[in-house]
C-alpha cells in the first residue's frame, strides 16, 4: 500500500546540484573524494528520517557539453563509483535506503546484479539501484568495446536518434531482467547445512537464469545468495515516453520532472498509461517528482543565495527538473500540493551540499511533520517496507500445492 504521506528522498551529487555549489559549500572543495563527506551526508539524511538517498554516477567526466569534456576549470570535476560510496556508508546507517546509479550500456549485468545484491546484504535490506543508459560516444570510448553513433541532443527526435534510444532502453530492460532473475536464482531456503548428507545447499533450490537476448546471454545462477529484500528496489529517472515505458516494465520507483502541480498530475497520468501499456502486474510504480532546491530562512534569503550562485557560475541555473527557491515552509506547502496532485513524494536535489541537505533535515522535515505529512521516526524494516512494496515471491520457487 502506498502510504498516506509523501515519500522524501534526496539525490546526492558532488557538492550539490548548482554548478557553482562548491563556491558556497561549507565542505572542503575536494570533499566528494573523501569517505567522511559521504558518511556525513547520509547520516545527516538518516537523522532527518528521510526514506532514501540516491548517489549519482556517470562514467564520463562532468561537462557542460552534451558529449566530451568542456575545458572548464571553475566547476567540480571528478567523481567516485556510486555503488562503492553506497557500500561505504551502509554499515554507518540503519534505516535509510541507499540507491546508487550503475550503468546498463557498458557494465556487465552479472557484476551489477551481484554488487547490488551485496549492497542489500551489507545494508540488511536497504539497497536500490538506479540503472543508467549511456548514449555518449565519449563513454563508449572509455571501454572501446562497442561503437555508438554520434548523437547531439537536437538529434534525439530524428528517426535515427529515436531508434538508438529505443535500442539502448530495450537493452537496459534486458539488463534489468537479467539482474532481477539473478537475484531470484537462489531460493531463500537454499542453504540447508545438512550434516547427515554432507550437503551445504539443496541445489534444486538454485536456478539457472538462462537469459538469451539480442545483446548478451547470461547463464547464472548468481554467486550471491538471494538478497534480504528478495528484489532490491529498482529506480528509473524518466523524462518522456520511452523511459516511462522502461520504468513501467522494469522499475519499482520512478523519478519524474514535472514543471508544476498541474503538470505533475499529467505526468502521473502518463506514467499510469505506460504501466497499462506494459501490462504491469506488480505494485504500481512509486512516483517521485524531482525538485532542485535552493533554501533560505526567508524568501529573500533563498533568492539571495540563488542569485549569488548564479552570479558565481556566470549563468542562471537551468535544470531538467523544476527549481524551487524559497523557505522550508514554502517547500513543504509545494510538496503537499504535488502530493495531492498524485505523486507519491519528491526527490530533492540540494543546490549546495551539505548546506541545503541540513536545511531539509532540520527545517523542511519538521515543517512537513507540523502539517501531518511526515513520520516522526522510521517504522523499521527494509527499503521496500518504507516504500510500501511487498517482498516479492521468488519467480523460481515452486508454488505450494
Amino acid at each position, binding site marked *: 500500500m502506498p502510504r498516506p504521506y509523501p515519500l522524501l528522498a534526496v539525490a546526492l551529487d558532488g557538492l550539490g546540484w548548482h554548478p557553482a555549489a562548491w563556491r558556497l559549500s561549507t565542505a572542503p572543495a575536494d570533499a566528494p573524494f573523501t569517505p567522511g563527506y559521504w558518511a556525513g551526508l547520509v547520516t545527516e539524511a538518516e537523522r532527518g528520517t528521510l526514506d532514501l538517498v540516491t548517489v549519482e554516477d556517470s562514467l564520463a567526466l562532468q561537462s557542460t557539453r552534451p558529449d566530451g569534456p568542456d*575545458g572548464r576549470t*571553475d566547476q567540480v570535476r571528478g567523481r567516485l563509483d556510486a*555503488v562503492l560510496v553506497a557500500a561505504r556508508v551502509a554499515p554507518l546507517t540503519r534505516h535509510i535506503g541507499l540507491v546508487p546509479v550503475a550503468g546498463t550500456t557498458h557494465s556487465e549485468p552479472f557484476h551489477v546484479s551481484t554488487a547490488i545484491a551485496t549492497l542489500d546484504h551489507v545494508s540488511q535490506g536497504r539497497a536500490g539501484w538506479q540503472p543508467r543508459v549511456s548514449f555518449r560516444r565519449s563513454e563508449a570510448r572509455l571501454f572501446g568495446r562497442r561503437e555508438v553513433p554520434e548523437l547531439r541532443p537536437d538529434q534525439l527526435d530524428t528517426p535515427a536518434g529515436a531508434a538508438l534510444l529505443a535500442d539502448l532502453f530495450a537493452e537496459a530492460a534486458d539488463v534489468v531482467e537479467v539482474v532481477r532473475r539473478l537475484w531470484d536464482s537462489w531460493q531463500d531456503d537454499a542453504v540447508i547445512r545438512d550434516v547427515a548428507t554432507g550437503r*551445504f545447499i539443496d541445489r534444486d533450490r538454485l536456478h539457472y537464469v538462462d537469459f538469451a537476448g539480442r545483446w548478451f546471454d547470461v547463464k547464472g545462477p548468481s554467486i550471491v545468495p538471494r538478497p534480504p529484500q528478495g528484489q532490491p528496489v529498482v529506480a528509473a529517472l524518466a523524462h518522456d515516453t520511452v523511459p516511462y515505458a522502461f520504468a513501467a516494465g522494469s522499475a519499482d520507483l520512478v523519478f519524474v520532472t514535472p514543471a508544476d502541480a498541474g503538470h505533475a498530475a499529467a505526468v502521473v497520468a502518463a506514467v499510469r498509461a505506460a504501466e497499462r501499456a506494459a501490462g504491469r502486474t506488480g505494485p504500481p510504480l512509486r512516483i517521485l517528482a524531482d525538485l532542485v532546491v535552493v533554501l533560505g530562512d526567508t524568501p529573500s534569503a533563498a533568492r539571495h543565495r540563488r542569485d549569488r550562485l548564479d552570479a558565481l557560475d556566470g549563468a542562471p541555473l537551468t535544470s531538467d527538473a523544476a527549481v524551487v527557491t524559497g523557505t522550508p515552509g514554502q517547500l513543504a506547502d509545494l510538496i503537499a500540493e504535488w502530493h495531492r496532485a498524485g505523486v507519491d513524494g519528491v526527490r530533492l536535489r540540494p543546490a549546495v551540499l551539505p548546506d541545503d541537505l541540513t536545511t531539509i533535515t532540520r527545517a523542511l522535515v519538521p515543517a512537513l511533520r507540523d502539517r501531518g505529512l511526515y513520520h516522526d521516526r522510521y517504522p523499521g524494516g527494509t527499503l521496500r517496507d518504507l516504500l510500501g512494496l511487498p517482498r516479492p515471491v521468488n519467480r523460481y520457487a515452486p508454488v505450494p500445492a
Partner: protein
Amino acid sequence: MPKQIILAAHFPGVNNQTVWSDPAAGSQIDFASFTHLARTAERGTFDFFFLAEGLRLREQRGRIHDLDVVGRPDTLTVLAALASVTTHLGLAGTLNATFREPYELARQLATLDHLSGGRSAWNVVTSSDAFTGENFRRGGYLDHALRYERAGEFVRTARELWDSWAPDAVPGDRATGRYLAEADPGAFTHVGEQFDISGHFTVPRSPQGHPVVIQAGDSPDGRDFAAAHADLIFSRHGTLEAGQAFHADVRARVVRNGRAPDAVKILPGATVVLGDTDAEAQERAHHIRRQQVSPQTAILLLEQLWNRDLSGYDPEGPLPAHDPDVSADTISQGRTRFSRDPVATARQWRALAQEKGLGIRDLVIEVTGRQSFIGTPASVAEQMNHAVQSDAADGFILVPHLTPGGLDEFVDRVVPLLRERGVFRTGYTGTTLREHLGLPVPAPAGRGPVPA
C-alpha cells in the same frame, strides 16, 4: 632488526577447507561475519584482509556442487563496506581481469582507495574458461596463452589511469573560482593489442597513488607477471624448502625486470591449528581434517582425480583398482585441475593406501590439504618466524577453517608471541597499506617522485 613478518587474514573460501558443519560455523554472507574477521585481524595489527572471488558456481557431474560452502558476496562492495568498520587494515580482493574492463575496474579500485584512506589492494587473476564466460557479455573469448598478455596490459592500463590526475589537480580555490589546476583532468589514451581506449578518468589520484597489486599464479608465466607487475605474491609454497626455492626463483625474475630484489613480497597461504600441547594440537588438526573431508567429500575429491563417476564407492572401502580417465573433459568445472599427471598420482595414492591400510576417506585426509602450522602457540610462532627469517616467506596469508571466528585464537595467543620476538608490529605506524608493507608510493608518470 630482524625481518618483520607480514600477516593477512583470508576470509574462508568455498572449498572443503572451510568447515560449515561445526556448531561454531557462522554465515558465509552476513556482513557481520566479514566485520568479525576484519576487526579480529585489525585487533591483531594484521597488514590486510583478503577476499577471494568466484564468478560462476562450481559444478561436478554437470550439477552445482553442493558439499562445500556455496555463495559469496561481490568483492569490491564488501571491501568498501569493510572500510567503514576498520581504520588501518588493508583491504585486498581478487578481481578477474578477463571479465572486466580496465576503465571500470581501475575506477572502482581508485574509489576503494579513496574510501578507505589508502588501504586497497587487487589480486589480479585471469581466466580463459568458457564455463565462467557464460555469465558475461563476451563469453569465454580469451585464449589460454593470452591470459597473462591480457593481465599485463590490463595492469599497465590501470596504472596509466591511476596516473592520469596530477597529485595537486584540485586546488579548489574559492577566492579565484579555480576548482581545477588544469582543464579536463584525467586525459588518457591507451592503444594496445588488448585495449584501445581513450577519454578522461573521473577519479583523482588516490592516497596510495596505485593500489597494491597482488598475483597468485604459479606457472613460469605467472611468476614473470608477478616479477614485472606485482607488489605481493600469494604463493602456495608453504614448506621451508619449497618456499626457499620459490623465493630464490622469484627474486631472480624480479631482478631481471630491473626491480630491487625485495620489491616483491612473498606470502604463502597458511593454516594454523593450536593446542595447549603439541599432542592436543595434533588431535585438533586431525579432527578438523575429518570435518573438512566428509564421506561425501572424500568421494568427490577422488572423482576429481579419477575424472570418473565414483558415487558407488564406499568411503571407508578401498580405492578404485582402475586408472583415472585422462580424456579432455573434466568432471568438475570452475576449479583448477587436481594433478598434472593423474595416473601417476592415483598409483601413488593406491600404494599409500595399501601400505597404511587406509580406506578412501582416510587416504584423502592423508594426502590432501594438511595444515601448515600445528602446535602450541610458542611452537607455531617459532615455526612461522623461522620460515620468514630463513627467506622461505615474507609473511603469510592465514586461511582459517571457520567463519567468522577462525582467527580469534591466533590473534589472542600467537600474535603476542611474535610481538615479543620483535618480528611483528605492536601497533600501526602508518595509515595506508603501502606504509604497512614498506612499499613506496609510485611516482606519477612524468611528474617526479612524491614523498610517501
